[in-house]
């Protein structure tokens, strides 16, 4: 079975989460991803370790690093010195894709301009993932996921009506990463016809904005003031969370049709308040949402959320327990779909990691051929195989600290 991206070689200069998320996807789809770090500047995600910086090897214990770098091989290169740049340039000449998420000035400072690289390797596709863009007044600003959540309007719309805007915890890195992947795949399709690569600029802020963009049009065109509405929403009445038996257990319920409402009332044992004809249609239910919330909350309070959700779902009512982010491994649907793949890592042992959310009928491989790389793990292998470096040359690079497998100073 051929993996969808078999034969595609990607030189991955990204760090943290947004960029590595893009190359995680490419690696899972069969691309050969070579992750570049340096002992002088390891990927910042290594610093989010489950072990304290006082313990040896702490940089190999980053849970998120291990997740988003699955399937990649790792090389360290000090790009601040000519020997490091020389090796990188030679790798790029042999590759299909270069991808980076530095501040815009870094690639220029390193002398790695797309035009120069394309002159050597016209098939190269270069994906640049700056926070705010390669130009514009905010070009050089620092941006994290939460920055994007605050700027894109997502935070403004998240929260309760009487409370402040709330940070929605994390979707912007993966959004940026996957949007960059979409552009890259389209460029691959175009390269089939033209034989040439191109430069792609996929910013974090514009990716985030695209996934919240109807609010811009709503405000700009119609002057509508959207407000935060907690867990309610325009397509359901009632729609909310209800506390269930036990600690921090919740039922999510979102009634979209009158039929579903009738089924819910029946499931609750047809209480008198539920049979009120004023609640038979969405408009009436919306007008008395608070009253419905009180009734449903009372009904849920002593029941088990997961059992209740199963019962309601089986009756065609959109319901769910609020699934703990840490215990998704217990979710029967994700289990049945093969959400988890077990991967052995030399430091932490075998653990389950999430698989990509898509299934291609033609592709039944394992997703991950290897765990996330330890720092500089594949220096010798890659520099020998691809560039033909001798043992003596490798030893010299190691002695000079151009390559290595421990963070400088650790």
């Amino acid at each position, binding site marked *: 079975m051929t993996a969808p991206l078999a034969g595609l070689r990607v030189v991955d200069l990204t760090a943290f989460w947004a960029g590595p998320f893009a190359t995680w996807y490419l690696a899972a789809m069969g691309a050969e991803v070579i992750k570049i770090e340096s002992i002088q500047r390891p990927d910042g995600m290594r610093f989010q370790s489950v072990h304290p910086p006082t313990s040896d090897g702490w940089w190999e214990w980053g849970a998120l690093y291990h997740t988003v770098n699955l399937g990649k091989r790792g090389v360290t290169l000090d790009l601040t010195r000519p020997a490091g740049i020389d090796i990188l340039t030679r790798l790029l000449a042999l590759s299909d894709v270069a991808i980076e998420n530095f501040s815009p000035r870094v690639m220029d400072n390193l002398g790695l301009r797309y035009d120069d690289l394309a002159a050597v390797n016209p098939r190269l596709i270069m994906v640049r993932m700056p926070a705010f863009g390669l130009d514009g007044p905010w070009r050089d600003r620092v941006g994290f996921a939460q920055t994007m959540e605050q700027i894109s309007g997502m935070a403004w719309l998240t929260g309760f009506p009487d409370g402040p805007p709330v940070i929605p915890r994390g979707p912007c890195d993966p959004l940026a990463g996957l949007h960059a992947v979409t552009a890259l795949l389209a460029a691959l399709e175009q390269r089939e016809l033209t034989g040439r690569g191109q430069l792609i600029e996929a910013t974090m802020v514009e990716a985030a904005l695209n996934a919240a963009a109807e609010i811009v049009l709503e405000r700009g065109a119609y002057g509508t003031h959207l407000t935060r509405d907690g867990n309610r929403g325009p397509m359901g009445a009632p729609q909310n969370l209800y506390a269930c038996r036990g600690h921090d257990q919740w039922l999510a319920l979102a009634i979209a049709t009158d039929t579903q409402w009738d089924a819910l009332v029946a499931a609750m044992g047809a209480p008198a308040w539920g049979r009120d004809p004023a609640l038979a249609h969405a408009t009436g239910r919306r007008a008395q949402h608070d009253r419905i919330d009180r009734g449903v909350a009372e009904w849920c309070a002593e029941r088990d959320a997961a059992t209740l959700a199963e019962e309601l779902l089986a009756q065609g009512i959109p319901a769910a327990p609020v699934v703990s982010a840490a215990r998704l491994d217990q979710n029967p649907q994700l289990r049945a779909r093969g959400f988890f793949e077990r991967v052995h890592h030399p430091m932490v042992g075998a653990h389950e990691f999430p*698989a990509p959310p898509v299934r291609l009928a033609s592709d039944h491989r394992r997703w991950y051929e290897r765990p996330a790389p330890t720092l500089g793990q594949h220096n010798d292998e890659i520099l020998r195989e691809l560039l033909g470096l001798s043992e003596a040359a490798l030893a010299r690079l190691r002695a000079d600290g151009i390559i290595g497998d421990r963070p400088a100073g650790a």
Partner: protein
Amino acid sequence: MPSTLDGLRVLEIGTFVSAPYCGKLFAGYGAEVIKIEPPGGDIARAHGPFRDGLPNPETSALFLYLNTGKKSVELDLRTAAGRDAFLRLAARADVVVENFRPADLRALGITYGTIQAANPRAVLVSITAFGQQGPYADYRSNNLIAFAMGGQMFITGTQEGGPLKNGGYQADYQGGLNGFSAAMLAVLAAERDGQGQHVDVSVQHCMAPILEAGIPYYSYMGRWAGVRRGNHMASFIGIYPCSDGHLGIHIMARNWKPFTDAINRPDLAEDPRFRTQADRGQHNDELMAEFFAWAAPLEKREIYRRAGPSRAPITFVHTMEDLLDSPQLNARGVLQRIDHPVAGEGVYVGPPWWMGTDGWSTGRAPLLGEHTEEVLRDVGGLSSVEITHLRRDGVRT
């Protein structure tokens, strides 16, 4: 210069957000996207707000945004004639995108098998709440359910206030985005192998791997520190109210000095309680009190301007006005004006990326059934007699 996906034809039998966002990305890259709408149209057409506040299927902002650059064919797939016309279009398409509940699509007599029989090279992309198989496959879902089932909601909000869903339709956007990527992989494979395939995307599954490390962390440590922390992951990562809104700060270790410089607080920089990131974590509450007091009198745009491009990650929570006025988004041409015969001119968010050789197609959203006749005739090869019959039985034009 031809567009990136020029020549690719996509049929969309999808409603609301997920499949339409997938189709929108195809249209933006230059593919021909034919949106097949049920009689009365995509349910997103009923989603407010509308122009002048009056419900109108042609002026839903959600619909207008998600369907830029597409053609609309109104076709009743529940009728034999409608289904037949759909399969004739599928015979000429590279990709079919749908987001029906699996049982509902089967009830229409449409499966990957029927599409494959009409066109072996076609790629069918199914974007559903829970995927094609498994115990939940045919359960009903929607926005709230997707956030609850995917784990995202559990980590958003406060411990006291309970879990909180994200504003907007993030989960469905994730489904559309993943649908597009997987469709492109299958298109590339079809070009190589001459064979299409069925691509299965689960929105629940889309949400689960994007959580901040919850899964491996729990697996490594046997416990989980990821409680809901509201607006403060720590004192130095979070939102603080200011005089006219909310400021956000996100200070990693190396940002501390530039930050205290930018806000002109050498006293904080020199305070031994706050010297290292670990110190700042240790004295979290004291530092948080400092930040609340610091932010309270400030004006959001002024402090943002002052922070400038120094390595002081200060931002502010943008309202819709702030977005529309954004100097960065305006300078980059991200906000684009598109006219529409019924809704009028609107400001649309443009492409999520820029490519070197060509632009993003910015055609408006179609009127309901605007291209029914043209598409059935030119793509489906239906005669005018057949179209007349369809109009009576399975379609309105």
